[in-house]
């Protein structure tokens, strides 16, 4: 992703401050980006590590007004990582459709919904597919050792 190489600080908006959202927020900050992170539950922000110095915004990330307030219109990367697949897909589609963000990444648990992102140039991360691939790798490693 070329967005990490630019000199000026770019903006990343993350919806959902869970395990994945909070880790990604710190990662992007280390890549020299400004990070705004949204969660409906204020307590979720305690998952952010102390070194995080971006903005935290409490509210419903699927609300257009709130996404706008969080800077979605200026963001170069928008990540949807709430605990609801449908909300993530909707945020992803909003981001691509209304805000034309360069990179939109959504986390989806149900791999059957991936096609809704594929045809809109939205990158989807599917934990089940990743686990499956990792498991296949472990199995094939074991098999090659056995041989």
């Amino acid at each position, binding site marked *: 992703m070329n967005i990490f190489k630019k000199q000026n600080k770019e903006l990343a908006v993350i919806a959902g401050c869970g395990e994945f959202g909070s880790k990604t927020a710190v990662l992007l900050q280390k890549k020299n980006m400004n990070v705004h992170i949204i969660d409906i539950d204020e307590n979720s922000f305690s998952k952010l590590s102390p070194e995080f110095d971006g903005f935290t915004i409490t509210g419903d990330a*699927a*609300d*257009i*007004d709130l996404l706008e307030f969080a800077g979605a219109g200026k963001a170069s990367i928008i990540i949807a990582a709430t605990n*609801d*697949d*449908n*909300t993530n*897909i*909707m945020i992803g*589609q*909003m981001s691509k*459709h*209304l805000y034309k963000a360069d990179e939109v990444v959504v986390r989806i648990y*149900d791999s*059957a*919904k991936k*096609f*809704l992102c594929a*045809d809109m140039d939205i990158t989807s991360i599917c934990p089940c597919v990743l686990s499956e691939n990792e498991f296949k790798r472990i199995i094939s490693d074991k098999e090659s050792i056995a041989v």
Partner: protein
Amino acid sequence: MKILLVGGHMKLNYLAKLLKSSGHDVTIVNEDKQLCEMLSDSHQVFAICGDGTKSSVLESANAAKMDAVIALTGNDASNLIICEISKKQFNIKTTLSIVNNPQNINMFKELGVDKCISAIQIFADFIEQMS
């Protein structure tokens, strides 16, 4: 017409009864098992109990054979996904949705929902006309 109703409670009950009595072929998908049983008994509609935002559930409700799908859940994201899967995966010609946040109406339309109904928007339009 073959019509699929997804989600909803009071709205679903009313609409299922109305459409059935005017001779349409009605199927419902709902997460509430009791409601499914109640509606299939009282209105003789085919009911599937499950999450209507999942394509496997819509498939077991025979979505590919439907003429129209109506999304009635209280969650806009769910309604959008129901309509999108119906349109893109099952090629259902007409998709209709309740929109809870009127600000989503334009986006819904652009993403392939054929008709959006928002009670608040209707009120606002009505008051606008009165004044």
